[in-house]
């Protein structure tokens, strides 16, 4: 079986493209950050590398790993940056080329299939992909950062909007891609703080996505992708912003990055990393904590959300 290492900080891209490639019989390992990447020591047949990652640029990382990890497989940049920039980055880093996210999931999947010479199969439908939930959460995060002067960071907002442009282009949501791009341009023009133009551009995007208000901010500390993702839709539907942490390092970073009304802590995570309690107490000493144990994971998420909302009052 051919295998692909997909490095992308967008959970949307990781989930959808990962599932589409698996449908073709290709094994896919998704890494969302350096932490994921450093823990994986497999030997893929192809690396798909996003460019704008949280900690460094994908072309710099790939170039380094060619030497330090002895990456032999072809590396293709996968990004919504302009083609000319991708061509330059791939060439300067000595990589094998690029695939633009602008061509959409189906065309990307076909390019990968052809590169790996994998057998052709019918592609899965995109019907149940929760693009809207992920997009709304991005806009909630952007609004949260912009609304808190103490956290205002143009780079953080630009990264979220850049990723949203890419996600929207991938599934042909051009109206959303254009609004996200317009908001990104407005933010890029500012560095001192969110001006009226920035707030207005973000508001237009929020309205288009149906985000009218955000009630509470939660942090989910949990390593299981599937369960964490299952909580996103009901929490988003109740107009809450959800930030996620999958490791102690990520939790430490996220705990500094916002005020939280509730911390959802996976009991298994705490068993493995008891110091998470200390981190939470140090950064958000007054936030309530709801520990999620195995029994609760079998409860309908919407019912849990109702319980958690009582804790956040």
């Amino acid at each position, binding site marked *: 079986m051919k295998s692909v290492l997909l490095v992308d900080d967008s959970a949307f891209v990781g989930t959808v493209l990962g599932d589409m490639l698996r449908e073709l019989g290709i094994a896919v390992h998704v890494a969302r950050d*350096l*932490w994921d*990447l*450093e823990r994986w020591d497999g030997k893929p047949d192809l690396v798909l590398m996003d460019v*704008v*990652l*949280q*900690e*460094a*640029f994908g072309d*710099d*990382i790939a170039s*380094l*790993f060619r030497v*330090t990890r002895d990456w032999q497989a072809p590396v293709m940049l996968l990004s919504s940056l302009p083609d000319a920039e991708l061509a330059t980055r791939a060439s300067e880093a000595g990589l094998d080329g690029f695939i633009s996210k602008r061509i959409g999931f189906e065309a990307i999947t076909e390019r990968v299939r052809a590169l790996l010479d994998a057998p052709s199969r019918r592609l899965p439908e995109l019907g149940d992909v929760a693009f809207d939930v992920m997009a709304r959460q991005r806009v909630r*995060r952007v609004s949260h*950062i912009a609304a808190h002067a*103490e*956290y*205002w*960071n143009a*780079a*953080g*907002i630009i*990264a*979220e909007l850049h990723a949203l442009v890419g996600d929207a282009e991938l599934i042909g949501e051009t109206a959303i891609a254009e609004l996200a791009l317009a908001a990104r341009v407005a933010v890029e023009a500012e560095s001192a703080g969110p001006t009226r133009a920035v707030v207005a551009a973000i508001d237009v995007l929020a309205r288009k996505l149906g985000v009218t208000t955000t009630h509470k901010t939660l942090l989910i500390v949990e390593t299981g992708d599937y369960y964490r993702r299952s909580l996103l839709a009901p929490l988003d539907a109740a107009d809450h912003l959800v930030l996620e942490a999958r490791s*102690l*390092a990520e939790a*430490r*970073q*996220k705990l*500094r*990055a916002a005020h939280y009304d509730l911390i959802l802590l996976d009991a298994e995570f705490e068993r493995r990393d008891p110091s998470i309690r200390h981190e939470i107490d140090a950064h958000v000493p007054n936030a309530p904590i709801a520990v999620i144990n195995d029994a609760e994971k079998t409860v309908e998420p919407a019912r849990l959300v109702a319980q958690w909302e009582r804790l956040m009052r």
Partner: protein
Amino acid sequence: MVILVVEDSSTMRQLLCHALRRIEGIVLVEAADGVEALQRLSEIRPDVVLTDLNMPNLDGFGLIEAMRAREDVKTVPVIMLTTEGALPDRARGDALDVAAYVTKPIKPDAIVAAVKQVYETRR
């Protein structure tokens, strides 16, 4: 020029060191967290410390606090790496005399420029 690079991710440390090797005559010393950095600071006297903020055992702010309390390294300038969307507490940084902030994702040119500028300014 001697630079102490403090970062818990080995990949990030390698990327930072790779970028900084462009500076002629540079000597790089590495540490994986604040505790290890303080040990290195007992052995060497760097011109600049480049440190991540979020690290296990002792984070970036904790490291600078410990440095400012030590006579031998209290004046060494510090550049802090920060993550997008999570600005560090600027008031705390100012109180600890952080010389510059560099935001991730790191651009090799920006790292080199920040180190050169802080080195020249503090000489």
